[in-house]
């Protein structure tokens, strides 16, 4: 297309501009000056010209000016552009049109031959692309072109610009000026009237502005199109089109953040697809020296190039996470890469950018990076588990450096880690294996020398087979995996330990003032932001706690549960209770080691029950119910004193609790009484108590130790109060419990505490399940829909349906309306009668006979 056009042109092809031009060499001729002087009134706009924006727009590339000069052409081109779509990106034609003739010193115009090497042409095309001026490259029909060239010529002679060599920018400015004049003349000629000069110049300015706006929008559109093209090119043939990556990379640093983030995201999509499924290892020098086949060389080139591009991309991303406007897009890219290609090179820099982002103040970034790390943990197949270790170790390091003052999200991520259930068992097996080998060695020594050689051969063979098998099987090596998991687990528990310890040493004392501001940001998470998720994690991985750690862990938890905090804000009820629950879970999951009676935690729970305050949200109640379930309901062996103490305290406390919590406490009491028959003495109301309690019968209100409470010698009088509880379910259950000893049938408790609290919780308002009212004796006949049987508001509303309500209202208002109407009619009637009477009275004296029969 381009070449065809070139042929059609009547004059020689426009010469190319000299590449490098100095600013000093520009001369403005006298003719030029006089021309301006002569047409001074037309040239007024030159002084008010916004050179800055023009230069910005044209920016060293002369291709745009034509568009600036004749507007008609420009709009025609635009229409064409719209119809032609992207084809305009044809680069070859770009250069031809935009280069002006050179005038020699003698005043003759010289057209340069179009004979530049393809290299420069390409370069120009390149810059043309980058600067997005394809509009100009659009090819005007040759007729127009001719016209343009002619006008160029005519004016060129008048203008007398001596061009030895021109600077890019200056050139464009000068030319612009020239072309403005030309444009003026042309518009004059076209309008065939010299009258509207001023008008046209203001018109021009407005158009210019419009054009600028349009071109900005346009440019973005074009960049989008270009990015799409580059992207598809790379994806179609990555081996040959890697250069496009560099171009896209260039677009990333575009001044408009919208464009650059789009470029970043499209690069993300591209890398996700073209990155190979293995980690690239660049050849060593030695390997480079070796002679390789063509294909191998090609592959190596591709890999190294790709790696270089990728590295630059990542460096850019990491840098831009710190800049404000791009940080979100950069985070998205980094996390996207981490999720999609964690096996590839530079993972560590991705990780080291992502991990601190998990503590970012921006919730979007935080969520993105947390999700990325989580997906790393969940899809270990993608990277063979090594990334997990790195990530966890980085998190551990972060926690360490930040002194455990981080947002809880950082730690919550660890919850999605998955470990083999038989991690501990595996190590035992490995040990056994080691022993076996030692035994084998010992046996070997005894083997005769003659046989020794034979054995060695066999062993060698076996080893070979094993290695071959390992290579052949795609499965990751079990031992390797185990090593990685152990490493991960160590880091995780190290983090947890650190947090627990930091929670004991109150943050106020251990930290300097520098973190005070940061702590202020974490106020929403409470004084110990990380303790909650840390305890959750411990509960989840409790089966993996090794026996060596367990003692230390339990003693830490014990101190936390007992509220032994060095200064600072005391631990919340929830956290303390949570500690107890976690300790029980840990011990229960390691039962095979030893059955331990966690006395101190029972003491803590015993005292915590008193601390519980009924709150509007269920969270505290739920934790309490969980504590009751884990510590009292599920564990088997307690001594009688303790059970009795807990029964007594729960009964007393449930007098103050909401129905949900009270039921969960009562359910626990019922369960305990059924299991420990001896505790049923509590239900007997004889004086004096039992023999077992007589040695320590000090009933302390704040009694620290359930074992010393002497509850066995007390009476469970709370039940009789509870049986008059306002909630029917509570009172029913209380009566049921108090008759446990006398009734023969064993009532199976069907609910456990956590189920109970969920079932009976009254937090959403109203009783749950709703209460049945006693039936009323007098039934209303008129409004059958209103005879409410259920107190529950929702129920009753639902029951009397909308239709019925509407009917009722309608009849009611009908009556009202009738009354009003009636009133109005009556009034009218009265009026008429009154006027009639008046009329009669008037007529009577005159004795007139003809009366109007009706007045209205």
């Amino acid at each position: 297309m381009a070449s065809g056009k070139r042929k059609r042109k009547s004059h020689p092809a426009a010469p190319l501009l000299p590449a490098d031009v100095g600013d000093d060499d520009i001369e403005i001729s006298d003719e030029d000056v006089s021309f301006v002087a002569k047409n001074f009134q037309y040239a007024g706009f030159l002084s008010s010209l916004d050179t800055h924006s023009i230069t910005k727009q044209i920016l060293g590339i002369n291709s745009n000016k034509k568009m600036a000069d004749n507007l008609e052409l420009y709009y025609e081109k635009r229409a064409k552009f719209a119809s032609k779509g992207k084809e305009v990106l044809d680069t070859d034609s770009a250069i031809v049109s935009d280069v002006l003739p050179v005038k020699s010193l003698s005043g003759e115009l010289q057209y340069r031959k179009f004979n530049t090497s393809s290299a420069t042409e390409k370069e120009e095309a390149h810059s043309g692309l980058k600067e997005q001026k394809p509009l100009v490259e659009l090819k005007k029909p040759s007729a127009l072109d001719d016209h343009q060239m002619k006008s160029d010529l005519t004016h060129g002679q008048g203008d007398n610009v001596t061009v030895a060599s021109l600077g890019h920018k200056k050139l464009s400015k000068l030319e612009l000026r020239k072309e403005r004049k030309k444009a003026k003349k042309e518009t004059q000629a076209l309008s065939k009237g010299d009258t509207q000069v001023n008008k046209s110049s203001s018109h021009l300015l407005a158009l210019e502005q419009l054009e600028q706006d349009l071109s900005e929008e346009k440019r973005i559109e074009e960049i989008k199109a270009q990015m799409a093209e580059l992207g598809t090119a790379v994806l179609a043939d990555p081996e040959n089109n890697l250069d496009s990556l560099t171009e896209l990379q260039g677009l990333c640093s575009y001044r408009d953040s919208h464009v650059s983030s789009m470029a970043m995201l499209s690069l993300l999509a591209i890398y996700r697809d073209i990155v190979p499924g293995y980690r690239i290892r660049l050849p060593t020098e030695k390997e480079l020296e070796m002679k390789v086949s063509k294909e191998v060389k090609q592959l190596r080139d591709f890999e190294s190039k790709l790696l270089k591009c990728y590295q630059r991309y990542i460096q850019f991303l990491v840098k831009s996470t710190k800049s404000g406007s791009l940080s979100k897009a950069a985070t998205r890219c980094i996390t996207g890469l981490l999720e999609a290609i964690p096996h590839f090179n530079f993972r560590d820099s991705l990780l080291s950018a992502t991990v601190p982002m998990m503590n970012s103040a921006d919730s979007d970034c935080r969520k993105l990076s947390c999700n990325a790390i989580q997906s790393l943990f969940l899809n270990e197949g993608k990277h063979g588990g090594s990334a997990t270790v790195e990530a966890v170790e980085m998190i551990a390091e972060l926690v360490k450096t930040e002194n455990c003052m981080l947002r809880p999200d950082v730690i919550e991520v660890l919850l999605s880690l998955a470990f083999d259930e038989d991690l501990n068992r595996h190590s035992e097996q490995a040990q056994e294996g080691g022993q076996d080998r030692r035994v084998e060695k010992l046996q070997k020594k005894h083997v005769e020398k003659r046989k020794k050689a034979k054995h060695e051969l066999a062993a060698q063979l076996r080893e070979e087979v094993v290695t071959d098998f390992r290579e052949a099987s795609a499965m990751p090596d079990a031992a390797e995996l185990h090593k990685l998991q152990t490493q991960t687990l160590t880091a995780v528990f190290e983090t947890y330990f650190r947090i627990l310890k930091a929670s004991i040493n109150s943050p106020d004392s251990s930290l300097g003032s520098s973190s005070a501001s940061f702590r202020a940001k974490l106020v929403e998470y409470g004084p110990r932001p990380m303790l909650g998720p840390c305890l959750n994690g411990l509960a989840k991985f409790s089966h993996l706690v090794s026996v060596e750690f367990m003692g230390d862990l339990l003693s830490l938890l014990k101190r936390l549960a007992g509220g032994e905090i060095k200064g600072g804000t005391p631990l919340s009820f929830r956290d303390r209770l949570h500690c107890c629950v976690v300790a029980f879970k840990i011990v229960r999951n390691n039962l095979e080691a030893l059955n331990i009676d966690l006395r101190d935690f029972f003491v803590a729970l015993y005292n915590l029950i008193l601390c519980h305050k009924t709150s509007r949200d269920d969270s505290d109640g739920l934790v309490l119910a969980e504590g009751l379930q884990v510590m009292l309901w599920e564990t088997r062996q307690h001594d009688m004193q303790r059970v009795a103490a807990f029964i007594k305290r729960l009964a007393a406390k449930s007098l103050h609790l909401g129905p949900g919590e009270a039921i969960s406490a009562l359910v626990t009491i019922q369960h305990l009484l059924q299991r420990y028959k001896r505790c049923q003495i509590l239900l007997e109301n004889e004086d004096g108590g039992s023999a077992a309690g007589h040695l320590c019968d000090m009933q302390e209100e704040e009694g620290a130790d359930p074992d010393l409470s002497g509850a066995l010698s007390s009476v469970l009088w709370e039940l009789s109060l509870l049986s008059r509880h306002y909630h029917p379910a509570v009172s029913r259950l209380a009566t049921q419990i108090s008759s446990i000893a006398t009734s023969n049938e064993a009532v199976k408790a069907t609910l456990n505490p956590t189920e109970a609290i969920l079932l009976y919780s009254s937090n959403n308002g109203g009783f749950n399940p709703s209460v049945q009212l006693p039936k009323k004796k007098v039934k209303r006949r008129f409004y059958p829909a209103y005879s409410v049987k259920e107190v529950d508001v929702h129920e009753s509303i639902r029951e009397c349906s909308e239709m019925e309500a509407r009917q009722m209202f309608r009849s009611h208002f009908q009556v009202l309306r009738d009354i009003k109407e009636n009133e109005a009619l009556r009034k009218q009637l009265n009026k008429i009668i009154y006027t009639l009477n008046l009329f009669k009275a008037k007529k009577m004296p005159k004795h007139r006979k003809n009366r109007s029969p009706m007045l209205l």
Partner: protein
Amino acid sequence: MRPLDEQETTAVFEKLHKFVGSNLKHLIERPAVEGATAGSAPLRYCFRLHKNRVFYASEALVKKATNISREKLVGVGTCIGKFTKSGKFHLLASSLDLLASHAKSKIWLKPSSEMSFLYGNHVLKSGLARITDNVQQNQGVVIFSMADIPLGFGVAAKSTQECRKLDPTAIAAYHQSDVGEYLRMEDDL
């Protein structure tokens, strides 16, 4: 019968403290029901030495016991232990109830090893059903059956942590005294 002198008190309290720890306070400050009159401060329990044996009795009882001559008096209240010829204090099986109700650390025995312990043998790891958390080595432990009946007391041979890793045949607690002594050493008690 006389109150303990300082040295003896120290010996007795040290021994008791091994088992009951800080609960020793409760043991001493325990209000006595016996002989208490309404309005006045409750009477306390006290320790008395009689014929090298230490008794734990309420003050009211002690007062009443003064009516009996020293030679004729066999005992008053609960005998909790005796001083040996060399001046050391030993707890006796009769102190078990007192210790059991105030004990800090406990060991529960499996039913299979109950009899073995009642014959005066040490507690092996294999017989250990449950142990209180955080028992220190050489701490006094009260030994219970699984039905929570106190069987005797002894000294922990290993701490709880070490007990986890212990061999099944290793000793977990040394025997000191058990309820079997009521039969075996009827005359001595």
